[in-house]
């Protein structure tokens, strides 16, 4: 058998061919138009809408499409899938995108904006909203609408939104006489009590460091250094990540670990596993967004109630103690679509006050549309709504969307902090080093965030 020799030969051939093609590729631009084309062709008969089928399903959009078709005569077809990103990406690559896309968290929508593949909706926002005289743009919560803007132009649209925070079990707390901690000092005292009662005080979704970043690190940077400290971090200002507030926040995380207040093994838990630990009362508190209930509803032990509270902050911190982190999941209209008009009309219908109110009632989440909170919110959401209404400072973690590579790296570094491999000072220095790389990288578009 001489096959292995031929392997060697064949491998050589491929490497050679590869080198050749790279050489050619350097000078020759591949036809970037692809098979798609586009431009002024007549709209397709059916307007395609691709939606991420997450915890809130796809049924709502389908029903709305049917209603929309009956009302306007324009046919809208909703295609939903938990991995809709895999259908949207190839369609955008060949220049034949759906008319409206809600790709979910797996797609970095800002990259599409940067490529000029997303329609500017600024003009559409000035048109009247569905079934109303008010300009469409004015029907949205302005702070949330702003999250989809770049250089004053509206590319990404909010629909529902979530708020980040911590969760506890009110029945358990009442039974044990535990009090929801407002300050970091109260948190430490409570953790000691919980630990003494033989329970893990806090668990977290360690496999995905996002939760640690959103539930602890960032709120504590804000608490310690004020909102401007976090803004500076988001804008990758030199030295921002290696500053006192960041080190302080890292120390707060490390302290919880060193005191043994985190559930043992939590670093290895996926998000659903950690949340199951919390719901099954093996840990007393967990950081998560307002989707927690809908995400876990099938695994919820009978009669279990959960309530929201803000991350406990420093008693003497510089930051607004009512600061609350919000998160949108963007929708957008791809520029290459031929049915942009119908897509916008359909999205206007979805964002009408009537449909938005219905979404809150059916799905249990906040909506970016003004005046859409109904009287009968689900209990878990109502507990968060109390804080939301009282909050004087809403902010969003936009750098996560803008610099996803950097966000992943910071997550990895947080894991090293949690594992005790890095001290808080080393942590801050390492993040700053990585931020420096992004800062210097001209291939990455830079954005500016202001929380005001």
């Amino acid at each position, binding site marked *: 058998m001489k096959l292995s020799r031929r392997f060697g030969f064949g491998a050589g051939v491929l490497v050679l*061919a590869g080198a050749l093609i790279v050489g050619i590729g350097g000078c020759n631009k591949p036809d970037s138009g692809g098979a798609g084309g586009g431009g002024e062709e007549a709209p397709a008969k059916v307007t395609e809408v691709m939606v991420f089928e997450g915890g809130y399903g796809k049924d709502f959009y389908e029903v709305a499409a049917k209603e929309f078709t009956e009302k306007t005569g324009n046919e809208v077809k909703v295609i939903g899938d938990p991995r809709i990103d895999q259908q949207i990406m190839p369609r955008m690559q060949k220049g034949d995108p759906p008319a409206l896309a809600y790709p979910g968290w797996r797609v970095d929508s800002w990259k599409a904006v940067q490529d000029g593949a997303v329609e500017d909706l600024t003009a559409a926002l000035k048109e009247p909203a569905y079934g109303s005289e008010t300009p469409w743009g004015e029907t949205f919560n302005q702070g949330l609408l702003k999250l989809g803007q770049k250089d004053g132009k509206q590319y990404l649209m909010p629909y529902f939104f979530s708020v980040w925070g911590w969760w506890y079990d009110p029945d358990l707390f009442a039974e044990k006489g535990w009090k929801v901690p407002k300050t970091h000092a109260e948190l430490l005292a409570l953790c000691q009590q919980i630990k003494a009662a033989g329970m893990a005080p806090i668990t977290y979704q360690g496999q995905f460091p996002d939760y640690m970043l959103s539930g602890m690190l960032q709120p504590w940077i804000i608490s310690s250094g004020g909102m401007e400290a976090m803004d500076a971090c988001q804008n990758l200002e030199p030295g921002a990540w290696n500053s006192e507030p960041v080190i302080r926040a890292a120390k707060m995380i490390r302290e919880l670990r060193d005191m043994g207040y985190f559930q043992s093994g939590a670093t290895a838990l996926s998000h659903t596993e950690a949340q199951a630990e919390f719901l099954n009362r*093996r840990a007393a508190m967990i950081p998560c967004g307002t989707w927690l209930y809908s995400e876990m509803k099938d695994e919820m032990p009978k009669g279990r109630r959960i309530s929201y509270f803000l991350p406990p902050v420093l008693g003497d911190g510089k930051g607004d103690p009512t600061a609350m982190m919000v998160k949108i999941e963007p929708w957008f209209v791809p520029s290459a679509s031929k049915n942009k008009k119908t897509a916008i009309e359909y999205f206007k219908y979805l964002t009408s006050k009537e449909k938005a109110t219905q979404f809150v009632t059916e799905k249990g989440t906040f909506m970016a549309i003004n005046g859409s909170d109904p009287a009968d919110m689900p209990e878990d959401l109502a507990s968060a709504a109390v804080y939301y209404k009282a909050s004087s400072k809403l902010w969003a973690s936009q750098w996560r969307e803008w610099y996803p*590579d950097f966000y992943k*790296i910071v997550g990895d570094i947080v894991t*090293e902090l949690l594992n005790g491999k890095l001290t808080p000072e080393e942590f801050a220095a390492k993040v700053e080093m990585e931020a420096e790389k992004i800062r210097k990288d001209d291939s990455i578009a830079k954005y500016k965030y202001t929380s005001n």
Partner: protein
Amino acid sequence: MAGRDIRRTGFILACLVPGLVLYLGLVIVPFVRTIQLSTFRFSGLSTKMVPNGTENFQKLWESEQFWWALRNNFTILVVVAPILLALSMALAHAAVGDSKLARGMRTVYLFPNLISLVAAALIWRAVYHPTVGLLRSTGLKGPQDGWLGDLNTAFPSFAVAFIWVSMGFYTMLFCAGLAGIPAEVHEACELEGARGWRKYLWVTRPLMWPVRRVAAVHVTIASLGVFALVNVMTEGAPSNRTETMLNALYRMMTIEGSFGKAAAMGVVMMCITAVSSSVLWLMFRKNPLEGRR
């Protein structure tokens, strides 16, 4: 004479063309296009492609994720794979023969290979689960951060799962190799008094050269191509300690939206694969026994 040649050529062409067309069009061309993509900035979210020279490769070079992926695949290849092969060889020696136990063993040992890797990953996550996992219930508490959460134990824990998934296949190969050794050889060994390690090193091992070569090729491919198991089990966590080249590539392609970087990762992988096959080729160029004859 000419007619015979034409018929021969026609036959060869008829045999080769359908397969070659498919293979070139759907395998080779896409592979080469991947190489081309590696010199472009391409988000995968539009038709826009911007040539960017070696930028994608520079970014890889500067990222820790890349080096961890490289390091982990390399560790799998030079540390985990030899352990896997040694264990399989030992098990194969145990499993030859006609006893009921041996035959039963030879029935079930391929199960991990046959079930979907998704199922295997489900199983191992349950084994390592820090509160209700099998290891935990048997008293092996593990590190504070959990078997798959601790920076030091995550990779070894993953490696055990990798060995579990693959071991049956190599055991089967080696069983086949052992069974292929003629009975006279065993008798001769018996007469000469060679047994145990001496017999293995001087008789069995050299005779199994062809099987060992097949195993080496397979294990190299498998070591470099680790994907589904990692993707479902850990997604590279914690902090890249279980990252592999393919999983990194997949992440870059999907979540990070940098197809160019993913393609660059692919090119690096192609080169590494080419180098490893060359090394394999050198190692297994010639059957030492054939030379002696």
